Every structure is written in C-alpha cells, then in structure tokens.
C-alpha cells in the first residue's frame, strides 16, 4: 500500500510542471481562472504548443505521433494541466476520433486524418446525439444511403444532430448514421466522416442558459459523403461508437479541475465577510466547504485506485462510471459554493464586450466574475457523457449485477 508516485513518476510530474510554467501563456490561464470565454484561436494556440512538445495526442501510441504514455502518466499530465489552469484540450479529434481511427481505420484514413488532427488542420466535432436520441444513443435516425454515380461511391446523409459542442469552429464532423433499418437497432449503425463545408450541412447555435454559445444543432439535407469516409465496416459503427465512449478516460473524475476550483473557493472564503468575519470562519459555510473538501480528498484516492488498477492491466471501464458521478457532483458543489460565497455579487451578468473601456469598473469582487454563469454552465456535467442516471444504470448492471 503506497499512495505516492514512484520517483520516475514524480520526475515526470516535475517535467510537466516545468513545461506548464514555461509554455502555458498567462493570458490563457487567466481566462480559464476567471471562467472567461476561450476563442477558437486560444484553443488552437494551446493545441499547437502541446503538439510542438509532442504531448497533444496524449492517448496515442508513439508510432502515430503520441507520447506513448501509460495510464499513470496520462493522469499526471491531465491533472497538472487542470491544476495549472490550462485550457481543456478540445477532445473530439484528438482524444475521441483519433483512437477510433487508430484501432478501426484503414491505412489511407490513418495516413490522411491523423497528421491533420495533430497539426490542427481539421477541427472535429461529434455527431452522436439527436433530438430523439440522447442517452438512448442507439436509436439514431439520421440516415445514410449508399449510392454510386459518375463521381464514385458515396452516401447521401439526411437528418439532424444536436448538442454538438463547438460545431461552430469545426470543419469536420464524425457521425453515427443509420445504414440499415430492418435489423436490431445497434446493428444498422455506421461511423461516417463528414466535411462540414459540403452543401446541405447547416449549423445553428443553441444558446445555453448562461448565455454561452457552446453547443449547436447540425442539419444534414442530402449531404453527399464519399464512401471512403466510412470508418471500418458498414453497419458496425455501434462497436466503434462504444469503443470511443468507453475509451479509457483517465481524467473523467476531473480531480484537477476540482482542486483548482476549490483553491479559488478557499481564497474567496478567506476574503468575503459574513457577520464581520471571513466566510471561512462562518460555521455554516465552513461546514459546507469542509464537506466537499473531504469528499474530494476521498475522491482523489478513489481515482488513484482506479488509475493504479488500469496501470496494472485491470479494466477501467465500469469504475469510470463511479468516477464520473462523484467527480461531477463535487465539481458542481464547488461551483455552487463559489456562487454562494459571492453573495449579492453573483447577480451581475456582465458581457466582456461592455468592459472594453479602460474606465469601466466591474461591480463586485474580481472572483465574482462569471460565477453564476459558471455555476449554471456546470449543470451540464451531470448530463453529458452519459447522464449520471445512465452511469448508475451501468453500475447497477455491470458492477452490482442487477
């Protein structure tokens, strides 16, 4: 029993910390710190910095340009990045499609698409959810009909995807499409790569409750997709989709995010006053704070136990459901306490653009910036990636055998 990293792992951790200290632009970490909107250029900049270091595709094996890290190294990297306030890597191309192509793509697809992901030539988004298929993913209705004409074999795609994160920045989308309807739901799905500049693709924003434009609807009307953009075999897409979904997610608990957010919360609790003393010394607030801190202390070790099991060759699949539920609950609770800590100053909803003038003064303490918006945005954590209720179904079935 040993909770410490090995000397090698510690050395790796220091290497990551040094890299972050030297190469993570303060401008970006400040934005993350204050929950300000990251532009496409911001995200691309951070991707490029990581890629120059050879650390962008942290899940890829060396032969495809990844660093070839083990589970512990991936965890350390992701954890240190979130502690340092690095922008989250946009996962759709590098962490989702990449591993699918590496495992199921043909040589031509790997040779063409993988380098473009690394360089940032393509921005990918994920065409999974549909208006009628959220947690029940296998019921996708978007159709792809195979055909042939003078330009060659192709699919004609019709339908709609929704909740498509950052589709407004993307030029490519990977989609689950229905290619057979006379079979079991899961058996008629294919995995297709679609160029979003093809005629018939339309992206419409969905503004979230915090005023953010993060998610979109994507419509497909008679969109022509070359047959070579089919990944793997036709009608086998469900297998690939599941592989992508259950793909080892070492950071699903988001411990680093929580630790960083808790630190900000503790700072706020030390400066905000109630009854003439710091909130941190207010018995009721201190109790709320301590409860989530203890839960996080426990969670850190639970997370390490899972990482250690994975590193030892164990199967991580189902445990990630536990990490997802508790990890997101903790993140939500911290952002909820941050909102409480700001008192009346949680209310102002200030657009960045309205503060362009030097003499503009933001009302309230600096930490109050976006605090409520952030809290509302974080409600998504227990909904996406398989809602926490779906995760409980998975636990009941896979761990409890019910």
């Amino acid at each position, binding site marked *: *029993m040993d*909770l410490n990293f090995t000397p090698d792992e510690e050395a790796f951790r220091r290497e990551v910390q040094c890299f972050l200290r030297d190469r993570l632009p303060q401008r970006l970490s400040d934005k993350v710190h204050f929950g300000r909107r990251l532009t496409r250029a911001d995200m691309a900049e951070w991707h490029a910095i990581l890629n120059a270091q050879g650390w962008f595709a942290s899940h890829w094996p060396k032969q495809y340009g990844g660093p070839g890290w083990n589970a512990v190294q991936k965890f350390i990297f992701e954890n240190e990045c979130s502690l340092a306030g690095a922008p989250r890597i946009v996962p759709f191309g590098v962490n989702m499609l990449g591993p699918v192509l590496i495992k199921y793509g043909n040589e031509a697809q790997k040779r063409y698409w993988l380098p473009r992901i690394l360089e940032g030539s393509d921005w990918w988004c994920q065409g999974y959810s549909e208006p009628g298929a959220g947690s029940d993913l296998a019921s996708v209705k978007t159709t792809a009909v195979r055909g042939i004409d003078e330009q060659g074999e192709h699919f004609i795609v019709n339908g709609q995807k929704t909740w498509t994160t950052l589709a407004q920045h993307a030029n490519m989308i990977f989609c689950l499409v229905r290619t057979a309807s006379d079979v079991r739901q899961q058996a008629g799905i294919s995995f297709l790569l679609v160029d979003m500049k093809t005629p018939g693709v339309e992206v419409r924003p969905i503004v979230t409750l915090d005023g953010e434009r993060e998610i979109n609807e994507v419509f497909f009307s008679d969109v022509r997709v070359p047959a070579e953009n089919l990944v793997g075999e036709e009608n086998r897409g469900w297998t690939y989709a599941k592989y992508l979904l259950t793909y080892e997610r070492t950071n699903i608990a988001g411990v680093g995010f929580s630790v960083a957010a808790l630190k900000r919360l503790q700072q706020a609790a030390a400066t905000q006053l109630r009854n003439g003393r710091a909130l941190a010394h207010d018995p009721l607030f201190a109790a709320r704070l301590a409860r989530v801190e203890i839960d996080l*202390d426990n969670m850190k070790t639970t997370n390490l136990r899972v990482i250690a099991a994975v590193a030892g060759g164990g199967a991580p699949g189902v445990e990630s459901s536990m990490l997802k539920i508790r990890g997101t609950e903790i993140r939500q609770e911290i952002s909820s306490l941050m909102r409480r800590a700001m008192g009346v100053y949680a209310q102002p909803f200030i657009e960045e653009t309205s503060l362009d003038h030097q003499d503009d003064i933001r009302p309230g303490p600096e930490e109050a910036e976006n605090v409520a918006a952030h809290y509302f945005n974080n409600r998504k954590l227990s909904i996406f990636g398989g809602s926490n209720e779906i995760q409980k179904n998975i636990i009941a079935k896979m761990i409890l055998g019910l």
Partner: protein
Amino acid sequence: MNFQHTDDRRMLADTLNRFIAEQYGFAARNTIAQSADGFSTQLWSRFAELGIIGALFDECDGGFGGKGFDIAVVFECLGRGLVLEPFLDTLMVGRAIALAGSTAQKARLAELIDGSCSVALAHDEPNTHYELARVSTQARREPHGWRLSGAKAVVQQGEQAACLLVSARAADAADAENGISLFLVPTDTPGVVVRGYRKIDGGRAAEVVFDSVLVGAEALLGVEGAGFSTLEHCIGFGVLALCAEALGAMDVAKDDTLEYLRTRKQFGVAIGSFQALQHRMAELLLEIEQVRSAVINAAAALDSARSVRERALSAAKYSVGRIGALVAQECIQLHGGIGMTWELPLAHYAKRLVMIDHQLGDEDHHLQRYIAFGQG
C-alpha cells in the same frame, strides 16, 4: 503508487477471515452478544493465539505489525464479523502505554498481547459529548500517589476489564488541553464502582465511578498534566480502527442487500430490476468506495505530522459517520419489513454501523475538528 496489501497482511486477513467465518457465525455471535460477559473470553484467547492482537503493535513493543495498514486490515475483518471482543480498547490503551509508559508499565504490554489482561479506556464523561480535552474527573496529589474522583461514561466492556486507563486532571480549566493526566487503575482498587449494561449493538459497557480512589505513584502514565497528546495519539489509533471496522461492516451490509435485491420477488420479478432501487444501490456503492479511500488516507497519514494525521483521521471518521448511517438506513429500507427483524443479520450490521458514529466522535464532531485543524 500501489494499492495492494503486502503478502503478510493478506495472509493475516485470510487467517482472520477464516477464523471468524468458522467461529463467529450469526448464531454464535448472537449468543456472545447477549451473554453476561458481553464477549467470549475463550475466543479472545484464541484471537490472541492467532496473533491478531500482536498485529496491532510494533515489534519493539512485543507485537509484529502496528502500522496503520495492519490496524486497518485487522479491523476491517472484525467489522465483517461484527466481532465483540475488546480489540478497540486494547489497541488504544496498549498504544498509550507503548507511547508514554515507564519500563515497568510497558512490561505489561505482553499481557495485553497474549490476551491475559483485559483493559479499557475510561475517558468519556457524562457531559463531554466527544470533546477530547474536557475532563472533570479530579486527580489530587497524595503523599504516595493520587486520589481520583469522578465519573466515566460508557466504558467499553468495563465490567471485564482488569485495568482501566483513566483521564483526570489536577489543574487547569475543565476543557484545557493542559493539566490532563493519565492513570492505569486496576478495577479492583477500592472505590472503583462499575455498573454494567447491555449495548444496542451487542456486547456490554459500563458507567464507572471513582469514589475517592487512592492509587500509587506508579499508576501515572507519562508526565503529569501532559496526558492530552497521549490521549490524542491513542484515540487516533482508535478512530482509524473504527473506520476500518465500519468499512468491513458496510461491505457485508451491501452484499447482503444485493443478494436480497436479486432474490426477493414482487410483482413477479426480482426487486433488483426496479430502477428506483438500482440507483439507490449504486449510490451506496459509490459512497462505500469513498469510505474505502478515506480509510486508506487515514491509515497512510498515521505516521505524518500532527495536523496532517488528525485531519485525515477526522475526514475518515466524518465520512464513516455520514455514510455508515446512510448505508444502515438504506439497507434496512431496501429490505423492507424483514429488515426490521432481529433474526436478520443485516439488522445487526446496521445497528453497529450507526453506533460506530457514537464512539470517539460523531460526524459533526469530526467535521468541526477537520475545519479547526485546517484553520491551524
């Protein structure tokens, strides 16, 4: 990073689990729990022969373990069997002697480890409500020793103890850390009045009154007036032990409940097929894994600096308090009517889990303590 126990500890756990499975079935446990003694002196000797008590102490004190994870492994097994023998108080009193005892006092550790001398910690008082430093029992200096007067509350297995570790003070305010002294008092000393009773979760405890009890100078454990740190040290071991015991009990409660959900039928199907029950069970699983992590954290922190150690211990005991009651309540509820009956083993696990929150500080006490240590 390695979350496997050593081979030695795995063997210890195997031995203990097997012994408990053979000797400590539900019927046997029920008989012991309601017996006049409150535990089995015969089994206590056999536990000692197996070396289970020795596993709680360092080699230099005559044991062969004594690390946080040794204690966690042993008590997790004890929790799985709802074992009633006085491991907890033997651990706490023994660790206090090992830390602060004179050579003569330390010589008595051998009798603790071989099971021939039963001991109990007499610290809580009727109005202390878990406060570690609140001691009203008086210790007055006499020419050749001390005179103790006061009352101690819910001393575990107090009737069977041959010797009590008693906290008392000669000086300072009743809640000051300074001024507390510790004494090893044989229970047959004139003036020691022990009034025993049953406990809701099995076994027995006692109210102990010290009616002007005269003890010799050799009864003092450690330095006069400086007993608080010894007390905190030995109770820290006790807190870890209770947390690990709770973890073991939770695992059994969870397994029993799962089995019931799989086999009990209503409306023609197993009740485990109902999503409302599945989600509650999944939640319990999550919470129990958090306790497992909390116990690991506490065991690992046992050798750390005071604030780190005490924070980890309080974090664990808080978690165990909150989650133990949750597991108890949910498991009874998921069983329905049968969960309310004495004949169901689960009911006794539920009682133990809740009562653990009433020993060595409850959920609120340890949350407050965790906060206080965080604020330095």
